[in-house]
């Protein structure tokens, strides 16, 4: 799975956690989950749990702590997928 494919899949993971649906369509690697999508910081753990189950990976706490932007999410997911594979 390449970065574009991960990003498209990530939109589905993020959708239930943001009220800014129109912005979700145009997210890019610089999009900040909390500042731009107005996601409640407490819900970041739910996003990580959902990503783990969707990509069939395990995200350790240290990696999870970096996942504040779309780009950082993709970095972690990309690494884990390829590591697992």
């Amino acid at each position, binding site marked *: 799975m390449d970065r574009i494919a991960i990003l498209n899949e990530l939109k589905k993971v993020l959708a*239930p*956690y*943001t*009220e800014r649906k129109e912005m979700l369509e145009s997210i890019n690697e610089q999009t900040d989950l909390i500042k731009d999508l107005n*996601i*409640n910081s*407490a*819900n*970041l*753990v*739910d996003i990580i*749990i959902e990503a783990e189950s969707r990509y069939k990976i395990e995200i350790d706490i240290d990696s999870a702590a970096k996942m504040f932007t779309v780009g950082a999410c993709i970095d972690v997911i990309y690494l884990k997928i390829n590591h697992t594979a």
Partner: protein
Amino acid sequence: MNNRVVITGLGVVSPNGIGIPDFLYAIQNGISGIKFIPQFADLNFNCQVCGIPDFELHQLKNYVTETTLYGLKSKGIGYGIKAALDAWTDAGNHIASEQTLWNTGCVFGSSVSDTEMIKNTITRVDSKESKKLGSRVVEQIMNSGITAYITGRLGLGNKIINNSGACATGTQAILLGYEYIKHGMAKRMVVGSSEFVDAYIFGAFDSMRVLSRKFNSHPEQASRPMSASADGFVPSSGAGALVLEDMEYALGHNARIYAEILGGATNSGGQRNGGSMTAPNAEGVIKCIEEAIEISKIDAQSIDLVSGHLTATIADKLEIQNWTKALGRKGINFPKINSLKSMIGHSLSAAGSIELVAAVLQINNNFVHPNINLEDPNPEIVDLIGIVNLPVKNLQMEVNVIAKANFGFGDVNACLIISKFNNNG
């Protein structure tokens, strides 16, 4: 300070009607909300009927944000949100305020947080999967989850209290809100209570053998307060909510006023002199009702209707005996008396608030709702207060003053007196 306190908004999630119009229709027409629950038969419960509102969480779509609704699983919290936000809009407000409303608080009660959620948490933790629980569990299993959701949505900034007093919870919540306004600590309070009785809570009551068990094949007849054939109470779920306002504040914005809370009291018999964990000390009950009347500055003779606790156990007769002593009225001179539980069962923590909503509607629409399933009144009760005071059909009459009481485990009593609103008073 001695501010007058009025009721300006109502909301209800009841087994026999959700929302005020449906609920009003149901209580005027003696419609039961008690149903047979196949799951309870499978679980070998003695009692296999209960009152469950026809409510699913997706009905909160226009009440909370989409992100809040996603992951909301607790029915009890859902009932509370629905009732409280309906009361809020009924009082003429928009749901979400931009700013914190410092003059408005909330007292909302509950007894047990969602045990289904707790079970799921236990299962996950025991299978070493706690990290899959996510962020939404704590807020829904904490007892104050219900007030947290309601007040967060409305932006309330005054006193925010989640109270718990078993079956007196709802009445106590309303009393606390009333007292804060009366003493000048808040201008408005959203008050009420909620209960969701799932199989685990239900099973624990079933094991106490205090529930109805002879009417499983006739669910609508199972809840029979004050009847000779009463064989225990029928558990029920739901929520009731009211918006209380300082009278001057309410008049200042031309609020529609349903009724006034004249006063109330709450106490305990100390689990002495016949009082115990599960039974009230009669002296405590009588003192509580007398104190409510005294604080309300009314004559007990002016009470038109008693909205009893009356769950359909042997305690019904003792309760009525206590009312006759506290009011100093018996036989034909006793007020009319009814039990909403005949239609919806006993919704524990939610009972007081749903029953107070019913009381307000009876004052506002001048009727006494029927006691259903009372074809065979307990003769000892008839001896105490006369058959004429036990209406079995909807009774149209002028209702000016209602005394409402609830009594809970732990020997906790709570009583409220409400009246028609009269600004000359």
